[in-house]
């Protein structure tokens, strides 16, 4: 009797393990399937309600977390404020000049979005992957809201990622910090171009890889999407979307590794509301 039970237990275990491998083999890299679409359609409204209902509790936990962080952040922000003040003076002059030039060439619209005719769709984050190895969030807007695969996703601070898969009422966003993410970017005003890749497990660090070692990049410079277009191919992201700030780029590092460290502008670990840039022309 006991042996029969053990045999049955082992058979079920083997079946489940084989089942998992079969599922993994069939579904890996295939996007969403019927089961996922069905469950997502049923549960995305429930997740939306749960997300809103649990927001006060989340805010309470965040308050505790941020209180611990506040002391260190205060001194960092003071030094950043000083730098920003210096930049803002130069920025105001540049904006005045920019406005005059735009009027001259009749391009007095939003520099990034209007030029590419994107329609921003606002969405709320309703789910986030629990493991440290994946970096994706689910949002409460899907194909019904005009969202398509590969649409860029931004927050108030900058680029967040792109749409990886779409369901009728929800969509999955592959974040910049996902190991499969890669965004062509350029450093302004240095002009060096490269590819922004993540460092898995660290949402506050991106790597600007494959940069031209002849163009000097230094800390404090801004990294934006490059947005390229060539013979039928185009970047998934429009040019000029803010990505982050170069934190470390020594000449030695740049020449040896052709890399620079970048801190993303968007708080990727704490996303609540995002915008999906639907439609528009890529690159």
């Amino acid at each position: 009797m006991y042996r029969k039970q053990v045999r049955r237990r082992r058979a079920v275990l083997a079946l489940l393990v084989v089942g998992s491998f079969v599922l993994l083999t069939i579904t890996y890299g295939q996007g969403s399937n019927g089961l996922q679409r069905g469950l997502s359609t049923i549960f995305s409204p429930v997740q939306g309600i749960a997300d809103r209902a649990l927001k006060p509790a989340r805010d309470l936990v965040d308050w505790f977390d941020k209180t611990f962080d506040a002391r260190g952040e205060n001194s960092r922000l003071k030094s950043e404020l000083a730098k920003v003040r210096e930049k803002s003076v130069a920025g105001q002059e540049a904006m005045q000049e920019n406005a005059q030039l735009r009027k001259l060439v009749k391009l007095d619209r939003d520099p990034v979005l209007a030029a590419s005719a994107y329609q921003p769709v606002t969405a709320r984050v309703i789910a986030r992957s629990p493991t440290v190895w994946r970096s994706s969030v689910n949002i409460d807007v899907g194909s019904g809201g005009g969202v398509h695969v590969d649409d860029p996703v931004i927050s108030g601070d900058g680029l967040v990622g792109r749409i990886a898969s779409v369901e009728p009422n929800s969509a999955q966003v592959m974040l910049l910090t996902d190991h499969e993410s890669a965004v062509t970017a350029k450093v302004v005003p240095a002009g060096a171009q490269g590819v922004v890749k993540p460092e898995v497990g660290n949402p506050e660090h991106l790597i600007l890889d494959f940069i031209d070692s002849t163009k000097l990049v230094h800390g404090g410079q801004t990294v934006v999407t490059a947005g390229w277009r060539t013979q039928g191919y185009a970047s998934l992201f429009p040019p000029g979307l803010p990505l982050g700030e170069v934190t470390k780029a020594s000449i030695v590092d740049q020449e040896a590794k052709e890399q620079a460290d970048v801190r993303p502008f968007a708080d990727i670990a704490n996303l609540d509301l995002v915008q999906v840039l639907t439609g528009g022309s890529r690159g």
Partner: protein
Amino acid sequence: MILTPKIVIRIALIGLLGVLLQLSFFSQVELFHVSPDILPALVVCLALLGGSLTGAVAGFSIGLFLDCLLVEALGVSSLVLLGVGYVAGLYRERFEIDNTLTPALLCMGLTLAAELGFGAIQLLIGIDAPVSLLIVRDLLLKSVYAFFLGWPIYVRRVLRPALVEEPKLRRRRQPRAMGV
């Protein structure tokens, strides 16, 4: 735990609620920059109450449901969580749980094992980016959180009343002396 249809439905509901709570709450809060992961701890507690088979099936189902809602490749979470459930259930079948710390420590250890399992599968599938050392901190903190999550789930017996139908004790009348 005897698996009656009522108990199976309750396990399914607990799994469903656990996944929804994880996605809508625990994954979206951070303590010291790390989000707690309640699911391995939940599977461990189910396995400690129901044994290896219940643990494995519950882990597989919860993992499958999680992957479906996250629109990830199916099978990754199922494989990891079924392993967690099976090991926890085996522990319950082979050893006496006489210490109140044991379930919480199992939650902690098996959450670490689950995260390493996820990492191993991701590495097998292929990671196209460098991995930060910060991930070690994240894994350790997740395990510590699992210790504190496992404590109320099992030790304070949050799940036990829902999953174990304990026979109601009949009140016996006090024997009375003859003629009173």
